[in-house]
């Protein structure tokens, strides 16, 4: 049975681990995540030496390369503050796989300790910050695509929709087969491009069929994949990271 996670009280300070995808392609989403936390009176520390959680190599089987990169991240969070990650995928890597990756090594204890402080952004906003939102945007429909790692690896299928439900003017609509993968899967999209394309094709059709012109997700991998497919077909549907959406509508 999934253990019930007990959440600590809100911390005065948190670390923010931006993830390499956000750093490179969606920096605004990272900054919006930081702004949301700061608005809750939290001081956000962004360790400058952060790079990547190591997941691309890990899921490709390059264990020692993944471990070396992960080890470099382990040193970045010396104080006992929570580590907020705007991605279920990277968050899942750090929370679930870091302890496995360093099991039996000198860094085992550190890895376990760091993993225990990792929170996905929407998880922290809902369960720790008890975030309240004052919606200043126009009424609209929006679709949420929760990433598979957020949903299954981190058990956070509900936190994104819970936040969207707090926006008074927003109607959350669910696409058919909402829990099905969008087909990104990191290197999967490159190694099995045709299968991945068939999956993202179905995902974009399902989102489009809701009639909402907009979708949000808590993972930039899915965002890159789904938006890339919509763009390729010159569709008007646009997606953004949930942090940007929340910030845009409430700031």
């Amino acid at each position, binding site marked *: 049975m999934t253990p019930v996670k007990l959440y600590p009280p809100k911390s005065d300070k948190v670390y923010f681990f931006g993830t390499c995808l956000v750093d490179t392609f969606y920096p605004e989403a990272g900054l919006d995540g930081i702004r949301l936390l700061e608005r809750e009176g939290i001081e956000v520390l962004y360790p400058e030496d952060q*790079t990547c959680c190591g997941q691309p190599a890990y899921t490709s089987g390059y264990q020692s390369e993944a471990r070396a990169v992960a080890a470099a991240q382990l040193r970045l969070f010396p104080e006992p503050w929570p580590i907020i990650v705007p991605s279920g995928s990277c968050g899942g890597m750090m929370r679930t796989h870091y302890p496995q990756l360093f099991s039996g090594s000198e860094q085992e204890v550190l890895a376990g300790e760091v993993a225990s402080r990792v929170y996905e952004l929407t998880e922290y906003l809902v369960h720790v910050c008890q975030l309240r939102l004052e919606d200043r945007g126009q009424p609209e429909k929006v679709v949420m695509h929760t990433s598979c790692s957020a949903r299954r690896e981190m058990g956070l299928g509900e936190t994104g929709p819970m936040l969207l439900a707090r926006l008074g003017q927003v109607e959350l609509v669910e696409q058919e087969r909402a829990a099905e*993968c969008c087909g990104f899967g990191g290197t999967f999209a490159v190694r099995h491009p045709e299968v991945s394309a068939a999956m993202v094709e179905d995902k974009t059709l399902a989102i489009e069929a809701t009639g909402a012109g907009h979708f949000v997700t808590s993972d930039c991998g899915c965002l890159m994949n789904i938006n890339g497919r919509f763009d390729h077909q010159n569709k008007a549907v646009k997606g953004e990271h949930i942090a940007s959406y929340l910030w845009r509508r409430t700031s």
Partner: protein
Amino acid sequence: MSVETYTPRAFHRQAHDALGNPQIRGNFRKAMDGLMAKRRDVFSDWDLETLRELGANIRLRALAKLPNLLEQLEANCEANGIRVHWAEDGEEACRIIRELCESHGAKSVIKGKSMVSEEMHLNAHLEAAGIEALESDLGEYLVQLNEQTPSHIIMPAIHLNTDEISDIMHEKTGTERTRDVDYMTAAARAQLRERFMNADVGVSGVNFAVAETGTLCLVENEGNGRMTTTVPPVHIAVTGIEKVVEHLRDVPPLYALLTRSATGQHVTTYFNMISGPRKAGQHDGPREVHLVLVDSGRSRIYQDNELLDTLRCIRCGACMNHCPVYTRVGGHSYGTTYPGPIGSILMPHMLGLEETKDLPTASSLCGACGEVCPVKIPIPDLLVRLRREAVGEGRGNVPGAGVKRTKKEVAAWKTWQWLATHPSAWRGSLLMAGKLRALTPSRLGPWTQYRTALKPAKRSLHALVKAHRREGEDES
């Protein structure tokens, strides 16, 4: 007979063909959607997580005691009059079964559904020896008529729709072309009934082999399993060594999980408990019952404390039904006896990683398989483990370990590692990427065949955070 051949080596081509076939796509999507909905409904009033935990623990306990339980099973089966045979691989198992058939002068074998017999290509082996092997499970029968292999471990003919089945039956057996499913089922039943009566040997699989009682449990819906195991004078059951459970009381929870996970049924129409041949004074049942226990790489899997979890499987097929990849490419694309997620973690042990190198990567690691597995096999973790083995970063105890390791890919990951462990170089490369974003190629191989390429942002999050901090300082 020219059996349609699919191989795991040709996964990409086979998947390409399946993806471009609207019939296949439609058949699988519809069937998998239905199976997922049935499973969800049938478990709706159960404490599923507790039941899965129980199922996992029963299987783990059985595996922990496997060598002893197999000895106990053998002793209790023999005491019940079931002759037990051990086969190191499929070839040996085929030879044992053929020799048993030959010793009875058998010319005709009727088969209940058995994936292990598929795994060892029993039908082809018997045919080569002049013994006809006829499948009696309706799906298997259709697939055999159509000279194919099963595309799903529970529903072998799931890739065929009503019209296709009507065509096959018309062409091969002379029935009327129709969409009347009852007519076709009745026709197949009549065709098979006669064969049951005349078969010299019945071959079946086993779902659970109970060590403490020497009982073979067989789960089925059509009654063909009961016919196969009771009508012919000789019954040969064949199964993998991992199918043993310790106690009779272990069976109900596993059965409850199996039928609900597989087809969304509370119970199957038949649940057979085979505990020996016909006894003196009994009027029916086989005169002889044999059990062939097949290893085929299972004991090697057993040696590894991570890979061991693969052997928990009770063959329900839920991982296939819920897999977004399987749903789109269908079972034949995998080119292996067991397709889908369970196949991708099992077949590399049987065929080697060279043959199956595209299977462990044929998953987005979405986790749907692990989420529904009734015995909680950590399938995504095992896929990653096999990816490690394939690139030579595992423990080296899977055949073909290291086969995918290339200098080019290693160099790429080493470069990535260097950058990601040298933060100032990382930031520098992001700065360059932002400045040179106009030069980002608009075509990036497979990605841009279906999607627009993404350009790096002008300024990285590192740069934005710095600017954000300066703004904050200016304001204060």
